[in-house]
């Protein structure tokens, strides 16, 4: 597993970012974690454009995507990812504060792989992140990809 692919965390809130990173750190994952602070940046990353034009090639192992984002919101990012024939295979986990049913329904319609409502209880949040990290970043073998 020498080429562990990175995890892309898309999160605008500094505090949430810090907490998520702390949780991920606790999981002791070896993956790099790339942080995008808004939807546009996340798209630049996956499409290798803008500031990420010259990044190392390769898709992230998993995208942890906040729903409410500046510029381009989470649902739109999801839509673009899942609308791309290549990128649609990247697992996307929607992380959100929202308990709104319509967000959940819309996310699944767009092909989200998991939907997690961030619990207020940090213990529960930690467990969720840990499970997700383990599953998507390590266990889940990506389909072979032709470039």
């Amino acid at each position: 597993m020498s080429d562990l692919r990175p995890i892309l965390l898309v999160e605008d809130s500094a505090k949430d970012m810090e907490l998520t990173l702390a949780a991920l750190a606790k999981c002791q994952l070896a993956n790099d974690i790339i942080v995008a602070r808004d939807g546009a940046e996340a798209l630049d990353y996956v499409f290798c454009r803008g500031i990420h034009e010259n990044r190392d090639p390769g898709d992230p192992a998993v995208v942890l995507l906040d729903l409410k984002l500046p510029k381009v919101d989470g649902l739109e990012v999801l839509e673009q990812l899942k609308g791309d024939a290549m990128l649609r295979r990247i697992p996307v986990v929607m992380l959100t504060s929202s308990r709104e049913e319509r967000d959940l329904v819309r996310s699944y319609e767009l092909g989200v792989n998991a939907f997690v409502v961030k619990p207020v209880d940090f213990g529960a949040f930690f467990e969720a992140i840990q499970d997700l990290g383990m599953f998507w970043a390590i266990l889940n073998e990506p389909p072979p990809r032709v470039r």
Partner: protein
Amino acid sequence: MPEATRDLDAICAREPIRIPGAIQPHGALLVFHPVDGRLTQASANASSCLEADVRIGMRLCDLPGGVELSSHLASWDFVAEPVFVRTYEISARRYDVSVHRTPQGAIVEYEPADPPRDGSHAVQYPGTRAFLMQLGHGQSLAELCATVARHTRQLTGFSRVLVYRFDPEWNGKVIAEDGDGTLPSYLDLHFPASDIPAQARQLYLLNRIRLIRTAAYEPSPIVPDTSPVDGRPLDLSMSALRSVSSVHLEYMRNMGTASSMSVSLIVDGRLWGLISCHSAQPHHVGAQARAACELIGQMMALQIGALERAEVASRAVELKQIEVTLLSRLSESLSVVQGLRDNPDLWLKLASAQGAAAVLDEGIVTAGVVPDEAFIQKLAAWIYEQTDEVVATERLGELAPELGAPEDVASGILAVRISQLRANCLIWFRPERVQLVSWGGEPRKVADVQEPERLHPRQSFGTWKQLVKGRSLPWSDIDVLGANDLRNAILNVVLRQAEERSKLIEELQRSNKELEAFSYSVSHDLRAPFRHIVGFSELLRDRNGDMDERSQHYLANIIDAAMSAGRLVDDLLSFSQLGRHSLALANVDVVKLVEEARRTLETEQAARKVHWDVGPLPVVWGDHAMLRQAILNLCSNALKYTRTCEEAVIRIKGEKLQGETVISIGDNGVGFDMAYVGKLFGVFQRLHRAEEFEGTGIGLALTKRIIDRHGGWIKAEGELGKGATFTFGLPVRDKEATT
């Protein structure tokens, strides 16, 4: 109407009363050709009566006195109604001569004139003038009728004069009488419609006066029996000497009257009544006196019309005032229902009714004395079936026996439909008014046993009393008008309220949208800070395992507080979301929901001793997710408030009733004081301190909202220290309810 009576009336209707082919023999009748003026027909008695040789083909001037008469007639315009020309002395006898024109020729009638005593205008004029002077001086109808009866008797010399008034079914009632005592009094007696058949009434409209000098006459036939002009029998509709039906003569003989005269009272083109004069002996009234009587009848009819219109007008003014008041109050009130409910007196007065009901979408509103609701529903359905917009009857029992109307409340109804699409209507009720009606003899004609085609009038005119039941006072045109106006007003109010409602709905939708946006942002932004507090506090604790006890306690409090604030936000959100989500209705197995709730809760309460007493539970019709939440809340409550019990007992029961399914969840916990039962289901209402029993105070409010959204009900019963029982009912599926 009984079969036999209808047959008899049919026979009556066939009586050829306009073309009897004969006249009463006290006078003579001649018919002169409309073109050549030659005699075409004459009564058989003409020659003897006029003491002249009357021959077909002769001219009027060939007759005794004819030269003078025909020169007179030449200066007259012939008219359709008989015109009294003058009194002639022919062969030493005095004759009153009348003339009228028909398509079959000019009909000249000779009658013996009254002796000069009361036969001259000079005598009649002062009496008639006195009568006319009395008219229009604020007389009531009763006074007017009495005056007319008295004056007519003076004028004609009959023994008894009656004023006879028709009811809407053409039964007659004697409302005034003047007599010399030789004939029995008929005052206040009723006479059935069959006494004066329809075709006779028709003739009364046309020819306003009719005299029968003696009931025992031998008719004098018209010769020849058909007119050479058109080959038909002579039309005697307008003739003064017309011979009447033999049935009528028999009727008169049975009544003990030998002579009679009738004057029509025609009000606004309708036969209102008759002035009916009788004597036990044959009696003659000359043409001049008859003309005076006819004039009196016309004057009286005009006066009656004026009186009726005045009555209608004053009632209309009164009603209009009631209506205006009621309508203004209706439009001020929140709803039609409220407006009617608040003004029962006006509502009843509008149609002078004892009871009133409005069957509306919102339900039934009533005022005064009304039948039970089930009957009103049934009646509304029946009214909806009727073709007319307005149903006004004083005998509902007879009109619709299948309804089984309670006579003491609803003998009469006045109903107007409000909606074309639904059985919505306004109904006014009048109770039965039992009436003792005195008939002038039993109101039945008798068919001849030997000759069924031959008809005999009734024999007896002795007073025959009848108890009339199942009828209310009849509804007047004004009542119907008032009812219609209220109907229109209600439609207006309903329309206006619909407009207001749609505006309100628009506003509500807008504010709902705002609320939705608000709660959406709350769900994102309000939860986050709590999450951050908890998260960073945890991180802080992790990094400082060696924190002193007090610091650890403070940190634990911070985490606790933030967590419960987070839960509160979550609970509030689910509460607000409940109203927005539509129900996904399906059959829901309550047994499964209870099992699920038990599993969820037991993991939290593993150490406790809890006895679950779950009876057989029915399947209910509802939203699975919502009901799961409701059952979970109630079970969780039961478990929470039995925490202090050594052994908690939770009983869950259910049963399917008519139209609803009822589930109850009871416990033996701390219970509550019934004084606070009203607060139990409110948001943030707590009956215990937070330290005793945790919770946000939303659980029961949420549960109630779930049940409400299903159209069900929920109640709580409890006693301090003895436990509480929550019971809710859910309506069964619509389809089941109707089958």
